[in-house]
């Protein structure tokens, strides 16, 4: 999805602000939100990190920017808990107001009425999977990334769409986030490190950017040209 989370190359965010540089958590509530990760498997509200990441991408875009990293997490967790029927947003708001919140406060979570199927719990914590056939590309191959955006979760950033790069490492098989986040199975695919020249990405020389990309994001540059 073309969400607010897909930040690579976007203008206007200004200098890097090192405030709070040495704090593991800026406040206790951030550690509270971090600890809520365990509620996913415990309630069945989410069963894998791909679905969790996608829930964060689905939060209110203004809250995504304004509420900070753990505010985004909170929005994702609330979204998933409400979608799974564990709580209603009304009861969370009621409790927050009782604790001193303003009823008009912006809420990051955006639960949908008809969520995707939850999918199966993973067989183990690892995301690596054996592949049934040999990977389609080898190190040194020139590839071009797909140019279309997709409506749901994906791990191809917009700035690297439709760009030519070279495969510099091959990482065997991994669970495909695009499928797993939506409860459509793990559908493992070969994963590659693809190196892009800054000239290709931005028309500016002097550096490279490498990304780890799934096979279905790539096509052979020879076939295209």
């Amino acid at each position, binding site marked *: 999805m073309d969400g607010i989370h*897909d*930040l*690579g*190359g*976007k203008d206007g*965010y200004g*200098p*890097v*602000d090192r405030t*709070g*540089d040495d704090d*593991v*958590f*800026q*406040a206790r*509530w951030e*550690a*509270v*939100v*971090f*600890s*809520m990760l*365990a*509620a996913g498997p*415990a309630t069945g509200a989410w069963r894998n990190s791909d679905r969790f*990441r996608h829930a*964060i991408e689905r939060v209110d875009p203004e809250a995504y920017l304004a509420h*900070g*990293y*753990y*505010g985004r997490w*909170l929005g994702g967790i609330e979204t998933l808990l409400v979608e799974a029927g*564990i*709580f209603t947003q009304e*009861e*969370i*708001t009621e*409790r*927050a107001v009782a604790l*001193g*919140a303003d009823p008009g*406060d912006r*809420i990051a979570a955006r639960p949908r009425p008809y969520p995707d199927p939850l999918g199966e719990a993973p067989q183990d914590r690892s995301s*690596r999977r054996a592949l049934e056939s040999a990977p389609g590309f080898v190190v040194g191959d020139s590839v071009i990334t797909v140019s279309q955006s997709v409506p749901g979760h994906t791990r191809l*950033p917009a*700035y*690297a769409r439709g760009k030519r790069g070279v495969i510099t*490492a091959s*990482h065997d098989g991994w669970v495909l986030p695009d499928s797993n986040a939506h409860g459509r199975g793990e559908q493992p695919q070969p994963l590659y*490190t693809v190196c892009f020249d800054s000239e290709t*990405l931005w028309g500016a020389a*002097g*550096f*490279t*950017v*490498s*990304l*780890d*990309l*799934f096979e279905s994001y790539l096509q052979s540059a020879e076939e295209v040209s």
Partner: protein
Amino acid sequence: MTKPSAQALRAEALESLLTEKGLLSSAQVDEVIATYSEKVGPMNGARLVARAWLEPAFRQQLLADATSIVNDYGFEGGQCEKLVVVENTPEVHNVVVCTLCSCYPWAVLGLPPKWYKEPAYRSRIVREPRQVLNEMGLELTDDVQIRVWDSSAEIRYMVLPMRPADTEVLSQAELETLVTRDSMIGVAQPVGVKG
């Protein structure tokens, strides 16, 4: 005292609801804070870097297969299912980011600093890395090639920074104190390296 933020209050609300259902406890939160403050942090990555500076064979192994080394050391914290270590040299400087979320090698570096997760760093480091590094206090000469690693899948990256000059007499423990978190992300040099 300032009023807690909207997200802090909402977190507290959800915390109390989850606690009532037995799904969260303050003991769990205390344990998370203790784990990521004391056990899991950049001191683990620094152990690997200092040893790589001292032992050429270990350096080779770290660059070839960092994942087995992390497993052998038994570092907790997760997010290192496959770790790749990239080496800085006088010619090449590496820097790590996650533009889509904030992926980071927790087991070796701990939880990421705030700036790593915010839009300014995530948006700009893939587009104008030299400028961003410069603003963060790291000046690289024009002949140094910059390699940016955008962690877009489950592979995690850590930088092996250059060993500072005149450190031949230092022990592993002394070397570890020179290895900062930022030098392993790639936004700084270790203590004692110019630039």
